[in-house]
Structure formats: structure tokens, C-alpha cells
């Protein structure tokens, strides 16, 4: 019986070592090969989740690229920023969404919940630190395991197909054509509580920008007055002043918009995005 246990364990260990070897090899290879199409010398980045993704049409903002993506918590924004710092010639400024729902406990789910993790983590695994891997594995081992499996599968496929364009994994402006006045959005049930994890990773982003001498500013994209997450405004302001007082905060929440500029309570539609983008262009490029 001891022989059986010994042989089984030794095979498992050999296999795990092989897996680590493949993972590291694939990750390092892709880190070298992954590229993004950008020719700008001075680059301004806009990052965040879906509010940002739908609000800033970078076609109207000079020297700026929108890299926001739906359902993205700061955990994944950090990985994305690590990639961008390595691959964009010079990042001048980063405007990062910091708004009410991003301090809410639901961001934990956006980081390691089943649906979000298998969707987000495989795209960024090669840029994660050991600590990041532990965060995911500790909170949702099965989801982490599935993400690892998807990451390896997709990475090997990319290597086989010689597809190293990473642009598609980075997000970008998303045009929404719907209108809140035509189809009112449903209110989401707001869970109480603060996501310490998201705040922790926001601090890591602040530190990373500082380390690379990148100017960082927080932006709060306009939210509809009926937006359900505005209930935590008090907590939001408290955290902003207590934790991030030294980071510039551009609050666009009161930017004059009509209800018809919103796709739903949290997102601007194409018309709203155009108004905001023109204003934002003027704001950041005429400072």
C-alpha cells in the first residue's frame, strides 16, 4: 500500500512540476510576444469598468485610448496596466474610474466569482504576481483551476496560430444605442458592505503609477440620479478622503446630461458619450 501511495504521489508531483514548467514557459513566451498596436508617443489611458467603457469615445479625445472593460475590478485593471506599461512606449497619464459601486462588496465577486473569474483571469494570468494567484486560488479554488485551464488552452492555441495581438483583451470604447427613457433599466439589489480587496488593489495601482512616474487621476463618470449604488455616497467620500486624498479626483458625476443621454442608470449611451468625451477632451488637453 505504501508503494501505491508513494508512486501515486510521485506521479502527481512530477505532473505538477511539468504543469508549472508549461505554465511558466507559456507565460514568459507570451510576455515577450504579446503586442498592442499603438504608435502614439505620448499616451493617455482611460481605464475602469463598463461605466468608463461606454462613456469615453476615444475617437474624440486627443492622444487618448480607452482601455476600460465591462465587469473589470481593480484586480484585473492592475494586470492590464502592468502589460500596458511594458508595451506602450510612453504612458503619460492614467485616468482611472473611481465611483460608487467600486467600493461595494460586489467587487469581490467581480474579482473571484465563478462567472467573472473564468471570463477575466485567463486573459491576464501571465501578468499576475504570486500573491495575485494566491488571492484567486484562496477565494475560489475551483474557479481558479478552471481559469488556469482556460488560460493554458487559449495560450497554447495562440502560440500555435501565431496570434500575439493582445489588443482584443484590453477593452475599448463600447457604443450603446439604447435609451433609458425608451426602456427604463431595472434596479439592482445593492448589497451592503465595502470591498477591502478592491480598495487594496486600487492602492496597488496607485503605487504602480507612482513607481513608473505616471500621472494618475481618478474620474467619476456621470451616473443617473436614480442609480442604485449612489446610496453609499457617504462611505464613498469617506474612503476617498481617508485612503486616496493625495490622488487627484475629477468628479464628472454632476456633468450636465439629460436622461436621454443614458442607456441605463449606470451607463451613457452614444449621445451621452459624445457630449462627455468632447468635454473631457477639452478638460484634459487644455489644462
Amino acid at each position, binding site marked *: *500500500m505504501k508503494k501505491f501511495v508513494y508512486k501515486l504521489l510521485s506521479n502527481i508531483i512530477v505532473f505538477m512540476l511539468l504543469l508549472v514548467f508549461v505554465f511558466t514557459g507559456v507565460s514568459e513566451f507570451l510576455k515577450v510576444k504579446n503586442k498592442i498596436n499603438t504608435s502614439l508617443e505620448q499616451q493617455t489611458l482611460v481605464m475602469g469598468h463598463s461605466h468608463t467603457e461606454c462613456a469615453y469615445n476615444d475617437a474624440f479625445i486627443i492622444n487618448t485610448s480607452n482601455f476600460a472593460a465591462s465587469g473589470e475590478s481593480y484586480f484585473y485593471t492592475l494586470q492590464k496596466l502592468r502589460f500596458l506599461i511594458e508595451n506602450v512606449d510612453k504612458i503619460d497619464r492614467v485616468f482611472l474610474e473611481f465611483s460608487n459601486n467600486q467600493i461595494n462588496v460586489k467587487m469581490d465577486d467581480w474579482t473571484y466569482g465563478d462567472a467573472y473569474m*473564468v471570463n477575466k483571469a485567463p486573459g491576464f494570468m501571465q501578468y499576475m504576481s504570486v500573491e495575485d494567484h494566491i488571492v484567486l486560488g484562496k477565494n475560489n479554488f*475551483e474557479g481558479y483551476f478552471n481559469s488556469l*485551464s482556460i488560460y493554458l*488552452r487559449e495560450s*497554447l492555441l495562440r502560440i500555435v496560430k501565431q496570434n500575439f495581438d493582445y489588443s482584443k483583451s484590453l477593452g475599448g470604447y463600447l457604443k450603446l444605442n439604447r435609451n433609458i427613457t425608451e426602456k427604463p433599466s431595472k434596479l439592482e439589489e445593492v448589497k451592503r458592505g465595502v470591498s477591502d480587496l478592491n480598495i487594496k488593489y486600487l492602492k496597488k495601482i496607485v503605487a504602480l503609477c507612482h513607481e513608473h512616474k505616471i500621472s494618475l487621476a481618478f474620474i467619476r463618470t456621470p451616473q443617473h440620479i436614480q442609480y442604485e449604488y449612489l446610496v453609499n455616497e457617504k462611505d464613498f467620500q469617506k474612503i476617498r478622503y481617508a485612503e486616496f486624498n493625495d490622488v487627484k479626483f475629477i468628479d464628472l458625476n454632476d456633468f450636465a446630461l439629460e436622461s436621454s443621454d443614458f442607456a441605463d442608470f449606470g451607463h451613457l449611451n452614444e449621445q451621452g458619450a459624445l457630449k462627455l468625451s468632447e468635454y473631457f477632451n477639452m478638460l484634459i488637453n487644455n489644462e
Partner: protein
Amino acid sequence: MLFNSLEFMFFLPIVFVAYWFFLKKTLRIQNLLIVVASYYFYGLWDWRFLTLIFFSTIVDYSIGYSFDYIKTATKRKVLLWLSILVNLGFLGFFKYFNFFIESFKETYSFLGGNPVGYNTLQIILPVGISFYTFQTLSYTIDVYKGKLQPTKDFVAFAAFVSFFPQLVAGPIERATNLLPQFTRKRTFDYEKAVDGVKQILWGFFKKIIIADKCAIYANIIFNNSEEYSGSTLLLGAIFFSFQIYGDFSGYSDIAIGVSKLFGFDLKKNFATPYFSRDIAEFWRRWHISLSTWFRDYLYIPLGGSRGGLYSKIRNVFIIFIVSGFWHGANWTFVVWGGVNALYFIPIMLLNYNRSNTDVVAQNKLFPSIKEILQVGLTFFLTTIAWIFFRSETISQSLIILKKIFSTSLFVKPIYDKDGDLKLMLFLLIFFIAFEWMGRKKEHVLQFLEDSYPKVIKYLIFYILVFMILLLKGKSQEFIYFQF
């Protein structure tokens, strides 16, 4: 608890270590561990239904025990019927109550009545009830018939009823085979344990790579059947054929492999059924534990293939329709059983049902043209029958069949999700090749033991594990849990 879950990855080594390292000296304690582990395994799904298993255990143990003392034929018969009524009563209530109410209401309305007051209940179907009910019934019937001595060891009997590897989806073990293994001292057998691990590996491959991947295609095609051409629907039915085989035989392989780790031998449940040359052979190779159960406890008592033409045909219909009904409380399963009976009867009447009792291409590497055609036709017929099994309603099945047997069968299938279809076809070819190589063995990976160097064997095992990890998707429940 699912075999393909994280919990099971921890559960199995813990029980294994406790069983062989700490409790190996006392058989009774080992059996007790199996009972506790099995109840925990089942209770993770819904602990309330443990009472059903426990009650069933007590009833059958007591009735079996009393057969030793009661010699009067009438009293013995009453006790036997009590066991049958209790077991089938539970099964009938939890699985078929709503079905009968619905069917009664529909018939009553059809005849012009107004079925007010006959309401269905919100009943949860206890996982595995069809399996352990049949297993305990086999004990009582065999003891009644004198084929088996009743056990006095309650713990051993409780372990036999609840043995976790096969509790929720079989194989349905006969008391004559499994129960004595609980009363014999078990010693660790290295070769058996290694073989068990290989069988578990192949079971996981079948479940995670073949069944779960085919399920993606089969589900989309069947759930949107009205949108697809006959060719795409046939493709969907083929995917379902592989899904159900990979799912159920994969579960059986894992169950048998896990049992080997604990020193038990379970009966083979699948013998590469898709390489059958006729329907009779298919049914000797598919879900063997259920087919033989029905054969021994229903078909033979009904008279089997003896008697006149009418009784022969009647018995075949009864066994197939009951078997279909066992799978689920829906008319689609009944029709599925009926279709298989229709396939079987001509073969039986022509005395052809015992003409293919060996393995296809017994002493050859490749089959003959005739065998290819026979295997292809049998696979096609079973695939057509699976359409009834998979469809939500009989009318959906008929619409799908109408499309398949129309000119749209010759249209190029349109379904290809993100180009993964090529990968899926490659996996199926790989799978069929392995199944073919291992068709004469107890389980597929045993073919590697014949003449392959150790390096190749290890390479194949590592590749299989790598494929399972790399290609796995979200864990899916085993289909047969619902039965």
C-alpha cells in the same frame, strides 16, 4: 457530491487513508467508515433524503433477517411484497406521482371531464433512488428465493446499500456479488488499485472531455431544434449519443475504479456498446447492470422468450417499456423503450439475437466491411432512438425525425461554435480509437498493458491528464443522477 468536484478531490484521499492506514485491522470498523463516508457523500446533496436510504436499509435488513426464521410460504410471500411495496412505493411517489396526476388530468380532460382538485405536488426527486431501490430489492428477492443467505451484520448491509462509489448512479450491484465482499476481510491489492486509478482516469476523460464537450453542441441543437436542418439535427443526435455514453459509462468507470481502491470488485456496466453489430448485442453491452436486473427479476419471471409468439413479443415490450419508464417520468422515455422493443423484436423472431456474442473483429485489428456496416447501422438506429430520450416532448422528437428524414438531411450542417467543432471531432476520433483498442478488456486503458513500453504508457497517462485539465469546462452534473 460529484466525482468531478473539488470536494471529492479531498474526500477520496481522506477516506482512503483512514480506511487502509488506520482502520484496516477491523472489518466492522472499515464497513462503518464506508457507511459514514457514504452518508456524508450523499448528505452533501440533501441530508434529508438520508432518512429514505436508512429506512430502506432497515426494512430490507429486517425482512431478509426474518426470512431465516419464517418458513411459512404465505408469510414469506407477504414479507417479500412488503419489501417490494415499500421500495417501489418510495420510488413511485418521489419519481412518478406528478407524472401520473398529469397524465390522469390530460386523459380526463380529453374524455370531456373537468379534473379539478387533482393537483401535482412540489416533489424533489432524491438522487439515485432508482439505483439503490433496485439494489436493495435484489437482496430481498434473492434471499426469498434462497439464492443468498440473509446477513446478520447490519453495518455490512448498510454499507452494501449506501456504498458511495455506486450509490447515486450505479452500477446496480447484486447482493450476491457485492454483499459477501463486505463480510470478507479485505487486503490491499496493489495491482487492483493501480488498475482502479487507470479506470478512474479513463472515466474522467469520458465525462469531462467527451460528455461535457458534446453536451455543449447537443444542448444548443436540441434546445433550438426548430431552427436547424435535418443534417444539423442528426449531428446533434450523434453528439447526444456520445454525451450520454461518455457521461454514464464515465461515471461507471469512476465508480468501479474507486471501488477497486477500497478492495471491491463491481460488475462491468458498459462493454463498448457502440461497437455492437445488432440491437440485441447493444443491449448486452449497454447499462449491463440494469439490463440484467430487468432480465432476472422481470423478463424471466414473465416467461422470457419461452411460450408462444404473443407472449414473446409481449415480454419484450414490457421489459423495454418498463426500462424506459425507469429512466424518467415522461412519455418520451416510454416511447424510447418502445422504439428499442421494435428494433429488438424482428431480431428475436428471426433467432438472430444471439448471433453476435463475441467482440467485433475478435482476432483482428480492423473490422471487415460487413462489420463496419453492421456497427454503423446499429449506431444509427440507437442514435435515432436517443432523439426520443433527449427531447422534451414526443412532438419535438417527431419534428426532429421529420426533418432528419427529409431533403434537409443533405444540407451542409451549419452549426460550428467558434470553430471548436474541429477540435471536438478530433477528440471523438481519439476517443473512438482508444475504445476500439480496448474493446476486449475490462476497461479501455487495459489495452496498454499488452505490449506497450512503460514510457509510452506513462506518456499516454500524462497526456490524458493534461487533456482533462486543459480542455475541461465548467463541471456538469452526471445525467444519470436524475434517474
